[in-house]
């Protein structure tokens, strides 16, 4: 007689049922696993077409991609090594800023009302920022500007939903004046060539005012305002060649900057006077040995080669360069600074309130924060905590032929309180009144 311990298939089935049942019981005794939080939707707006795409828009977008991917993967350096915003992954929608101001506003409304984004980070043109600001306030939409420079956004009236972590344009020109005077103490005559629109006019006004305060005996020689994207600068170069100026200030960018430098270098202008380029940092990797040695380089803050040597900056430089084949320039830094600022505020709000924070909670958490970006520390101390200030830096360009790469040497750093107006003071008035309260030591 053969003894069978039951029917093997039936035994297997019973064992399986018991296992399932025990697992189910065990599972029922465990707390239910938390659902991963839904994604945070961000609208990222920058120029993806048109003349501003190459120098600003695309580097800005690239900066956002790098930072958002690292945040979502939790691979950004500390203190940003937690996933996304408050643990929720970021879903970014990239939108082109090109087009009329009306179109920019329409696209902003689409992002907020149709796409229901949680926040918008973007905008390069000051015109775009000025147009979007009242709409952002009307829609109660959290908006972080990353590159536009006009101080008017917060000077016209207080804002609640609009922030700008990157400093405004005033420090670009006060910093340029301080660096120039430090390097050319006896400067008597200087000229300027700036594009004939608000950016160029405001930059020149700030620079001249700052020179008037810091070097009262110096005088303006030539004031040149070619039209935006003029392309041909022969007459301007001749005018400067026949002048006695000792320095040339310019807020030219991209095509105008590079075209002017190609043409002026062919005619030897840089041997007569140094070029003080407040945004020239954005062009050094394209122009390389065609950027004249001795050019005074600004990068709208301590960005690119002017950035401090920190682990966060080293990480950003490395990841960006490996991904895009060229080092990040200042718009990439400004975008990174803006997205990280949003993360700091979001995480803070979520920690305080629990769960996904409401827009007003993030706004409250954003006001007046201080944090570290790839370009160093930033403090939102102006405009009731909505406008950031940073130190700035200027340096002198040198193309290192042995290493076959651009270098910025002789870097001088100016503390944030040295080149920015104090809270509550209009930037233009601050310079004209002699930059009272500036703390430079």
């Amino acid at each position: 007689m053969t003894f069978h311990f039951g029917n093997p298939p039936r035994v297997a089935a019973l064992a399986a049922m018991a296992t399932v049942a025990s697992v189910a019981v065990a599972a029922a005794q465990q707390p239910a696993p938390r659902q991963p939080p839904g994604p945070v939707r961000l609208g990222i707006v920058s120029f993806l077409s048109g003349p501003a795409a190459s120098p600003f828009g695309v580097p800005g977008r690239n900066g956002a991609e790098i930072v958002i991917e690292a945040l979502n993967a939790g691979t950004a350096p500390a203190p940003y090594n937690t996933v996304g915003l408050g643990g929720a992954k970021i879903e970014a929608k990239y939108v082109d800023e090109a087009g009329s101001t009306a179109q920019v506003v329409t696209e902003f409304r689409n992002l907020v009302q149709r796409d229901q984004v949680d926040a918008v980070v973007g905008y390069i043109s000051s015109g775009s920022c000025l147009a979007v600001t009242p709409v952002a306030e009307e829609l109660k939409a959290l908006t972080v500007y990353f590159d536009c420079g006009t101080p008017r956004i917060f000077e016209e009236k207080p804002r609640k939903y609009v922030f700008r972590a990157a400093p405004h344009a005033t420090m670009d020109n006060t910093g340029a004046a301080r660096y120039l005077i430090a390097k050319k103490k006896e400067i008597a005559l200087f000229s300027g060539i700036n594009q004939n629109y608000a950016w160029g006019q405001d930059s020149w006004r700030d620079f001249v005012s700052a020179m008037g305060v810091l070097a009262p005996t110096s005088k303006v020689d030539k004031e040149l305002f070619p039209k935006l994207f003029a392309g041909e600068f022969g007459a301007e170069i001749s005018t400067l060649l026949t002048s006695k100026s000792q320095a040339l200030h310019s807020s030219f960018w991209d095509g105008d900057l590079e075209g002017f430098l190609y043409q002026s270098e062919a005619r030897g202008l840089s041997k007569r006077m140094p070029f003080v380029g407040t945004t020239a940092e954005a062009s050094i990797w394209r122009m390389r040995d065609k950027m004249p040695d001795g050019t005074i380089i600004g990068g709208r803050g301590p960005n690119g080669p002017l950035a401090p040597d920190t682990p966060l900056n080293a990480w950003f430089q490395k990841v960006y360069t490996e991904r895009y084949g060229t080092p990040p320039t200042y718009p990439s830094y400004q975008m990174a600074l803006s997205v990280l600022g949003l993360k700091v505020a979001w995480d803070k709000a979520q920690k305080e309130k629990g769960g996904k924070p409401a827009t007003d909670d993030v706004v409250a958490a954003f006001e007046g924060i201080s944090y570290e970006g790839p370009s160093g520390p930033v403090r939102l101390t102006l405009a009731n905590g909505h406008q950031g200030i940073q130190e700035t830096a200027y340096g002198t360009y040198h193309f290192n032929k042995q290493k076959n790469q651009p270098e910025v040497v002789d870097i001088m750093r100016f503390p944030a309180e040295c080149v920015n107006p104090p809270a509550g003071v209009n930037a233009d008035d601050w310079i004209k009144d002699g930059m009272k309260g500036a703390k430079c030591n």
Partner: protein
Amino acid sequence: MLTALAILTDGLVYAAYLFLVAVGLTLIFGVMKILNVTHGSFYAFGAYGAATAVGIYYDRGLPEAGGFLFMVLLAMAIGLVLGFVLERGVLRLVYGKDEVVIVLVTYAVFLMLEDVIVLIWGPRSYGAYQPMVAAGSIEIGDLVLSNYDILLVAIAALVAVVSYWALKYTRYGRLLTVVIFNRETAAAFGVNVTLVYTVTFVIGAMLGALGGAMMAPKISVTLGIGVEVIVLAFAVVATGGMGSIEGALIGALIVGICRAAAVHLVPQLELFVIYAVMALVLIFRPYGLFSRAAPRKI
């Protein structure tokens, strides 16, 4: 004295630039009565083509002199292909329609070609400075002149002379003149107007591309360069007389000299002076300096 010399040389260089970008536009308008906004795209494609050619040529370490020739030839070849495709593929379909419709069609094509540039070359800007650097410079007192600028003036003068000679003294030029005066009569006398249109448009496109190629070493070749050029070209063509090559030349010279004088003497007026000249001319000669008397059709 030095300032006067600077105004003259700068004016000539700027006029050469204006003439090169305007001559193709005025030729197409003169023959086909099309205000061709796409001309800005021809300029942009010429500049991008030139930048590509310069990149290919100089990266291989070939003799410097050939780089300029390669740049110009490649840009004009791009103009030829682009002009032919647009004329046969698009404009042929709208001949006979209202002039405003045709302007809108060329504007639409212009916008599409801006995106085509992004698709081909991406959003980054390009430098094509090597021919200008290779050309060197000369010094006259405190003034340093780029030899490339002198070459630019010479090329513009050559284009003006060849255009004048071709229109006045060649068979094709005479056929063109007949079509300019009256298309229907020309067709009735057996002139192949369709062929004249195609050839004219292609030549206009090649001239636009030549303008872009000649300017590429001086500028940063970047998105949107065609937009700026088309506005200036219209101002020059309107000043000189729509459809007149002599008008484009004289218009470019007047605007170029006046602008150079403004930059040297009253820089605040630099932007204003180009359009002030145009307005002043149009007040006294509403059809431009070299407009033809139009026969009244009954």
